[in-house]
């Protein structure tokens, strides 16, 4: 039952990232961090303050930062580079491709202020294509945690992951979904509610919205399964295939361009395992606009109520 999740507001995932970095820095002197003049926004300044000799300030030059991070990582450092998703992926993409992905360098790349929930700063800073870009880098693992505890745990795991990793973080405070005992494993999705009529699959801040949608649908008598895919690549094929087989109806919701993010990747797995009715909920081929984050999310239909509309349509097709 979705109602068991209280969804009390917690910290932003970018803040959880910054705190995890400090803990990593304390437990391993091999951890180094690069930032491109956004350290107060990405929260890498916490690490920089604690370990100034291991913090590399690269100025507003993301391409250079990514390559420097790759050089540090190829010399045996556990290297993180961070900026807004829109900058590190778009301006650093060539370097991520050549120096990191193709070269097989285990750099950890963190993009904050992802999605349209950045709000006031508007589309030049909003990344609605970051999952698509990151997933297109061969050999990359792509992680998109939904809340503070999952971000904290997965950043710490990513540090010791043998390959390159992209982690998607957000600007705004998000509801806490997970308790202190929850275990997270890269590549393994988490089923949050049981359900047999329909499955809502999501990642990032839309996971909480899916729980809200589930509560609404449950009130209407539907049995709704909610799945958090904190790892967007590689996908948890077993969990997706099982949900497709058992509920026969899947809705994927994401704060990302709807035709190039999580949804199309999940559809690929569903097609290969247990084809069923699917609908996709996301940003529709556009760049959103400035506004308070909650206003932007409402206008671009990123709320639980909006997901519920899509879910009812999908369930109607199933019947």
């Amino acid at each position, binding site marked *: 039952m979705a109602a068991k999740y209280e969804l009390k507001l917690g910290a932003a995932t970018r803040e959880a990232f910054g705190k995890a970095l400090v803990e990593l820095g304390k437990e391993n002197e091999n951890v*180094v961090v690069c930032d491109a003049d956004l350290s107060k926004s990405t929260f890498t300044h916490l690490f920089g303050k604690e370990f100034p000799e291991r913090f590399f300030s690269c100025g507003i030059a993301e*391409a250079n930062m990514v*390559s420097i991070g790759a*050089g*540090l990582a*190829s010399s045996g450092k556990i290297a993180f580079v961070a900026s807004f998703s829109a900058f590190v992926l778009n301006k650093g993409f060539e370097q991520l491709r050549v120096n990191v992905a193709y*070269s*097989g360098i285990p750099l950890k790349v963190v993009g904050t202020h992802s999605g349209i929930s950045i709000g006031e700063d508007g589309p030049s800073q909003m990344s609605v294509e970051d999952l698509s870009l990151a997933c297109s880098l061969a050999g990359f693992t792509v992680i998109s945690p939904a809340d503070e505890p999952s971000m904290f745990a997965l950043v710490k795991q990513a540090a010791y992951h043998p390959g390159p990793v992209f982690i998607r973080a957000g600007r705004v405070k998000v509801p806490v979904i997970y308790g202190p005992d929850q275990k997270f494993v890269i590549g393994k999705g988490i089923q949050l509610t049981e359900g047999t009529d329909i499955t809502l699959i999501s990642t990032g801040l839309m996971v909480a919205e899916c729980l809200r949608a589930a509560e609404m649908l449950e009130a209407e008598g539907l049995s709704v399964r909610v799945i958090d895919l904190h790892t967007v690549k590689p996908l948890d094929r077993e969990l997706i295939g099982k949900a497709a087989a058992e509920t026969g109806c899947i809705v994927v919701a994401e704060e990302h361009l709807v035709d190039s993010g999580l949804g199309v990747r999940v559809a690929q797995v569903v097609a290969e395992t247990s084809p069923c009715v699917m609908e996709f909920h996301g940003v529709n081929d556009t760049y959103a606009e400035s506004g308070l984050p909650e206003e932007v999310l409402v206008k671009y239909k990123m709320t639980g109520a909006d997901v519920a509309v899509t879910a009812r349509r999908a369930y109607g097709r199933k019947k």
Partner: protein
Amino acid sequence: MTRTSDLSELQSIARTVRRDIIEMIGTAKSGHPGGSLSAVEILVTLYFDVMKHDPANPTWALRDRFILSKGHAAPVLYSVLAETGYTPKDQLNTLRRIGSIYQGHPDRRFIPALEASTGSLGVGLSLGLGMAEAARLDKSPSRTYVVLGDGEIQEGQIWEAAMYGGFHKVDNIVAILDNNRLQLDGWVKDIMGIEPLAEKWTAFGWHVIEVDGHDIVALQAAFAEAEATKGKPSILIAHTVKGKGVSFMENNPKYHGVAPTKEEVELALKEIG
């Protein structure tokens, strides 16, 4: 491997490397002879004399790092790696063939001794800075050498890296600019002029050493000067001739990316001696 500071020995190695380059590219029927030939003395001086490295132990933590940022000059690097004993010499003529370790551009998936996979221009100096920063953090004596093309520095990332190196006083890195004055479409000065070079790099906080890039003794002195320079990174502006050593290739933009014919290979080998 033979390690030597002796001029005649290094010159003899340089001749062998030039022969390798011509034979490899001639056999492959594609590749970049001009920019490989212009960098021969630079790589020979580095690999046989200046750099501390051990082909028997390619992952030695304290080794000096080398990055061929102008990755299309792969044949000169492959020849030097083979002549120093990192890779098999008898496979050089498989250059660019399917399955060969000698890929079109340097690929560390095939040759683990390579510090970097290169080929997309402009990224190597930044990568080298990361390696140099790691060495500084570890208080390692390891130094990093990055060979850049002159056309390559038209890429914006080079100047991001130049700014970083100067500002952060990364004095354990040396850039070597293979200033052969030609790029694919013609003379650098006609495509997108890069002068004044010395003033630009000086302004970015680098110690600039101008050197004849085919004069091994001058290169040895320049690398020593770079190592003795503390508090700032160094760049050798190596004045070179594209296609050096093969008269019909010298200063001829055609041989940026065109392989010599069978007859041209014979002519070239005769000339190199």
